[in-house]
């Protein structure tokens, strides 16, 4: 029994008028897209709105999707652009205010995990959005250099360069917080 209908089939189904097919894509990608945006903007409510907006835009522009690429690259690109535009509009860089709750059921571990998440997110918000995007795609979504280049619309060489710089910035920020040696 087949476990998954592939993304391209679902996209084609949606273009053929099958609304339910897009529902499956939303169910499949809402978690990763929400997390990518949340790491970009930090605020859960904003991330929820932007995720919603990203999917609506994807649905509206689905006919423009090039099926030579992967659907996730396309939806990530829309999502990251939504987040970058939001950040440009708001220009907010204030410290994290505790939005990152942990799902860990052990209270001590949950606290430690939530605190680490909070500090990492705090540090992420202190680097530029463009650099933040490469770190998020690489480390939280396991994107390859090529995939990141597609998502961000930049050459692979630029991806590597940004990643190199962003990692050092984040590492130094976390070292200053005592999170890393």
């Amino acid at each position: 029994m087949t476990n998954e209908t592939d993304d391209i089939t679902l996209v084609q189904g949606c273009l053929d008028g099958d609304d339910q097919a897009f529902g499956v894509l939303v169910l499949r990608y809402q978690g990763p897209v929400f997390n990518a945006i949340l790491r970009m903007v930090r605020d859960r409510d904003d991330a929820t709105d932007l995720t919603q907006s990203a999917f609506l835009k994807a649905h509206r522009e689905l006919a423009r999707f090039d099926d030579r690429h992967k659907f996730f690259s396309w939806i990530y690109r829309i999502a990251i652009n939504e987040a970058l535009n939001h950040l440009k509009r708001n220009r907010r860089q204030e410290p994290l205010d505790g939005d990152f709750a942990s799902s860990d059921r052990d209270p001590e571990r949950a606290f430690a995990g939530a605190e680490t998440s909070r500090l990492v997110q705090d540090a992420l918000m202190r680097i530029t959005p463009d650099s933040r995007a490469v770190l998020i795609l690489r480390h939280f979504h396991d994107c390859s250099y090529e995939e990141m280049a597609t998502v961000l619309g930049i050459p692979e060489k630029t991806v590597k360069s940004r990643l190199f710089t962003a990692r050092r910035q984040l590492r130094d920020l976390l070292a200053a917080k005592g999170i890393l040696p």
Partner: protein
Amino acid sequence: MSAHHDPHDDLIQRDIDGRITEDERTRLAALLASDPVAREEHRRLAGLRDLLAALPPEEPPAQLSIKVLRDIRARRGARGTWSFWPGGRLALGYGYAAAAGAALAILAVHVATGGRAFGPEPSPRNAAATIGSPVAPTAGGPWLSFHNLDRNIAVDVAAPGKGALDVTVAYDAKAFQLLGITNPSGGLDQLSASDGQIRWSQERPQRVTLLLAPRTETGARLDVKYTGERGIWGVGNLDLPGVN
């Protein structure tokens, strides 16, 4: 942003990203053995990678997909009734639960005649349906089937018969969580759902899809019963799989 790093940095970065070749791995090993600065750089970046990898993803809000799909349908002006029960409560008037796809296999339902009571006895088959009636209902094909939908299970119920029917679906709530129920033609009345049981009435033939999330590895049985006018009735069951 320009790059100001040397080939050693590239090598280290490729290793951190798991993109290193065997030849590069050999070179890296030699570098790390001979250069304490490179060794320290590698150690710290590996620490950063491991720290980030350990952070769990956040759960998206429960209503997120519902909001997205509601807006899409509102924009398209689509008709149809879609219902979701996040957390077991009827929350919205529509939602999405299932998708049709050529690659999705559908388990055919064995249809038999005769009267076997709708009850809890286990079926040796994956799926079974029984239809009995003084006036035989139309039963031209399988009316109860399921297919996997990512990690969830979509159960299609299309009770045969031209007239009004009352339909009851029973499942083990410990084995499955009901994520949603759809019927694109929008002809369900008195729809209700509580843990382990879904009921509705329909005035005309409907195809209803239930989206269930397995909670256990073993799976469990799902039973469906429908009754209609002039003594029409039918039962069916599916042995649904557990978590993949």
